[in-house]
């Protein structure tokens, strides 16, 4: 017996033994590494920013009443814009998902176009349309500059975000509750108050704060059309970029951080938003002419306004001297390229591509750790990962310039890529986290049983399984890096300037034609990339469509 035991023990020593503790700790080490990287680039810059604030900055900011005025202006314009933007977005989402109108796909594309251009260009578009020499300014004097301009521009810039969020939520609402209400004879307004609003309550709060944060932290629109009305981000921009007073900028940045942190906390504790766990029956809108007429009006008017802004860029960019000489010209494009436009376009595209790729890889790796490894570190890593959601771009940019000003990274594309990855990290991370979390939890276990290593399971099964979300994450990083003017405005020098910042420059020198050219270029690149992403995601559908078309043509010929 003993001999038998010895021989079996010898055999065992040849076989590779499982090392339970090591496989577990390997995951934890990787998570600690990722957590340390995120801490270095998210939390430490913020701490540096806080350390920068001194007594002098308090004096500079709070004396003279400038700050109080800017704060008041910010809160007032943001509140009004948010209310209008959220209401408009709900109306549009309702029209798209609850009525039988035609051209829904076209409307959906047109309505999200404002997301593909920098916020400052919305302000610029408004100037072209309603400014002193505007297309629709018939009296000679414009009332655009100031509160009206800021509110209009902010609505234009923020409603697509709320629209997409509402569409997503309305998609998951159960229709049977409304059927039951119809049977019980409950009126439509009461149905809205008793069913829709309670269902949407949490989501509505979340959307409201997201839009509020988006508007209050944006400096593009107020800089373009604010006139004498200054908001907090403009004050920060002027202090930090104009006067290079970083400590005053840091103090204002803290105030901008407050609504963002509130929004972040609400979002964190508001996880079970309106999506019901199961949808018993999807909505199939019934025919209702008055409803459809209303839906057409709201969709057509909003789309027309969005298109009008884009057309205004084209008018400005392609006419010799708008509005006096409308003859076609490419002179403004030449002018823009002459002022290093092509180099900056190249910078932008390279920066966005690298941001998108690195951002996608890092957010996937982090989401994989938190969603599928589930070690002790996962929760901490998850919290660190979504913290970046609460940091406005301006504050992040300011903290980066304080931290990296004297480093070799400053003035290179690397720092822009880094700041963009951190700035836009949270949303793609959450998308990927949800996708990976929903995947079958036993895939890795099956891999182990089949003798397939974890890396192969990830490359062969997990990545193909969340391919669409990865493309979406890449697209999100790319488009946002192309249009961002917040964080990068502090870190850009002549060598690494992205194209979007040229709008600020041209706008400051009142060269609206060249600014319009830049907006068109950014829009064109983003539309092209969106088309490429769409084609990759729907490759099978496109191949099927082309093949079926080919067959039809052959049939026609034979007939």
């Amino acid at each position, binding site marked *: 017996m003993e001999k*038998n035991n010895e021989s*079996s023990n010898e*055999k*065992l020593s040849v*076989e*590779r*033994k*499982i090392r*339970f*503790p090591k496989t577990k700790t390997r995951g934890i080490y990787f998570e600690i590494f990722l957590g340390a990287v995120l801490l270095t680039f998210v939390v430490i810059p913020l701490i540096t920013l806080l350390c920068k604030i001194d007594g002098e900055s308090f004096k500079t900011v709070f004396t003279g009443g400038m700050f109080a005025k800017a704060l008041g202006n910010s809160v007032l314009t943001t509140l009004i814009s948010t209310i209008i933007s959220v209401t408009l977005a709900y109306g549009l989402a309702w029209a798209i998902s609850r009525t039988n109108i035609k051209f829904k796909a076209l409307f959906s594309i047109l309505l999200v176009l404002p997301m593909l251009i920098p916020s400052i260009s919305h302000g610029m578009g408004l100037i072209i349309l309603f400014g002193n020499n505007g297309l629709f300014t018939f009296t000679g004097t414009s009332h655009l500059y100031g509160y009206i301009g800021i509110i209009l521009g902010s609505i234009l810039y923020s409603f697509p975000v709320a629209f997409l969020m509402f569409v997503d939520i309305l998609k998951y609402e159960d229709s049977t509750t409304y059927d039951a209400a119809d049977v019980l004879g409950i009126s439509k307004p009461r149905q809205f108050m008793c069913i829709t609003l309670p269902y949407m309550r949490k989501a509505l709060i979340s959307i409201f704060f997201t839009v509020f944060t988006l508007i209050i932290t944006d400096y593009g629109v107020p800089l373009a059309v604010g006139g004498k009305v200054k908001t907090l981000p403009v004050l920060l921009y002027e202090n930090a970029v104009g006067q290079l007073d970083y400590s005053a900028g840091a103090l204002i940045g803290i105030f901008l951080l407050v609504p963002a942190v509130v929004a972040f906390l609400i979002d964190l504790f508001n996880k079970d938003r309106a999506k019901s766990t199961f949808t018993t029956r999807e909505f199939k809108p019934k025919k209702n002419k008055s409803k459809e007429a209303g839906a057409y009006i709201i969709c057509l008017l909003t789309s027309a306004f969005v298109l009008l802004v884009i057309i205004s860029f084209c008018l400005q960019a392609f006419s010799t001297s708008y509005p006096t000489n409308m003859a076609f010209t490419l002179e403004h494009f030449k002018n823009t390229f002459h002022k290093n436009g092509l180099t900056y376009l190249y910078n932008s595209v390279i920066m966005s591509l690298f941001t998108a790729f690195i951002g996608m890889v890092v957010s996937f790796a982090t989401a994989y750790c938190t969603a599928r490894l589930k070690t*002790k570190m996962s929760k901490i890593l998850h919290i660190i990962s979504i913290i970046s959601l609460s940091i406005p771009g301006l504050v992040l940019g300011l903290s980066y310039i304080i931290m990296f000003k004297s480093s070799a990274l400053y003035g290179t594309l690397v720092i822009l890529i880094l700041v963009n990855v951190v700035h836009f990290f949270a949303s793609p991370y959450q998308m990927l986290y949800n996708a990976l979390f929903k995947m*079958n*939890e*036993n*895939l890795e*276990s*099956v891999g*182990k*049983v*089949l*003798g*397939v290593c974890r890396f*192969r399971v990830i490359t*062969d*099964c997990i990545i*193909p*399984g969340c*391919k669409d979300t990865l493309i979406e994450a890449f697209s999100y990083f790319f488009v946002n890096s192309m249009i961002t003017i917040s964080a990068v405005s502090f870190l850009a020098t002549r060598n690494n300037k992205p194209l979007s910042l040229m709008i600020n420059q041209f706008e400051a020198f009142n060269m609206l034609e060249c600014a319009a050219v830049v907006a068109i270029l950014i829009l064109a690149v983003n539309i092209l990339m969106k088309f490429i992403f769409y084609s990759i995601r729907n490759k099978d559908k496109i191949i099927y469509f082309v093949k079926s078309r080919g067959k039809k043509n052959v049939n026609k010929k034979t007939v």
Partner: protein
Amino acid sequence: MEKKTKVTNEIKKVKKSKENETTEIKVVEEKPKDVKLLIENLTKNFVESNGLAVDNVSFSVFDGEFLSILGPSGCGKTTILRMLIGLIEPTSGKIYKNGKDITSLRISQRGMGIVFQNYALFENMTVLGNVEYALKIKKPKKTEREKTYNPIKLIKFMLEDRKKHNENTREQAMTLLKKMHLEQFADKKPVDLSGGQQQRVAIARTLALHPDIILFDEPMSALDVATRLELCAEIKRVQKEFKTTIIYITHDQEEAFTISDRIMVMSVAKIAQIGTPEEILSHPENDYVKSFVCDNLTNKINTLKNFVEIANGKK
């Protein structure tokens, strides 16, 4: 009288022959079986959740046996299964397979397969892709060939080997799919199949590596009654055809009593009773087994009887 004596003699003969048969059967049953899996004092204590999931459990599984582990949710059934296959590290205790200690052996070296409740199929692959994946990923066998240091020739040989290997694995996978009556779905994605069909694909994938023990983790929980019956028969057929030992986890008494050779009833973290279905039904060892298994089953049977009587118009 003669007739009577003849009849009584015949009856005696029949009785004798029956007795002989029963004694023969008894002899067959009493033959000592090979112990395939021996579990000794297996314990799992989850420190994070501060709970003893499995407490000093010992049992054995015989070669070719169908053992069901029956118990309510959270009693530690799945934890035992995961420890057996190596997905969870036991706090203490030993697992022997064919007399060899496999407690610390790598999962892929244990010669076991597992079928999960939620199928865990690779959604991006076809049915055939799922079954051949594990085979395909292994290194291809080197064929006999001339010795060469020419890198182009070497690459050519490697590619040839890979091609042959892929062809072989495809053939093996197709044979398996045919055996599981799934050949017509070979090119389909798992999403296009029904729950029962997906579970059969999962079984085929497990069988691809020829495990001598297959573990089933509540494989029918997500299926409807008709599909459950079908799959039950399928699993039994697989057991006979592939001569495998099966450990089957379920919380459904009927399921366990219809397909198992032996049943291990579990209370919280411990074994309440282990025996054949007849033994457990006729001699429940404690009140827990009586209430969890026997009373539940008799209740179900009574309800069924009531239904039948109502249907026949007797009530």
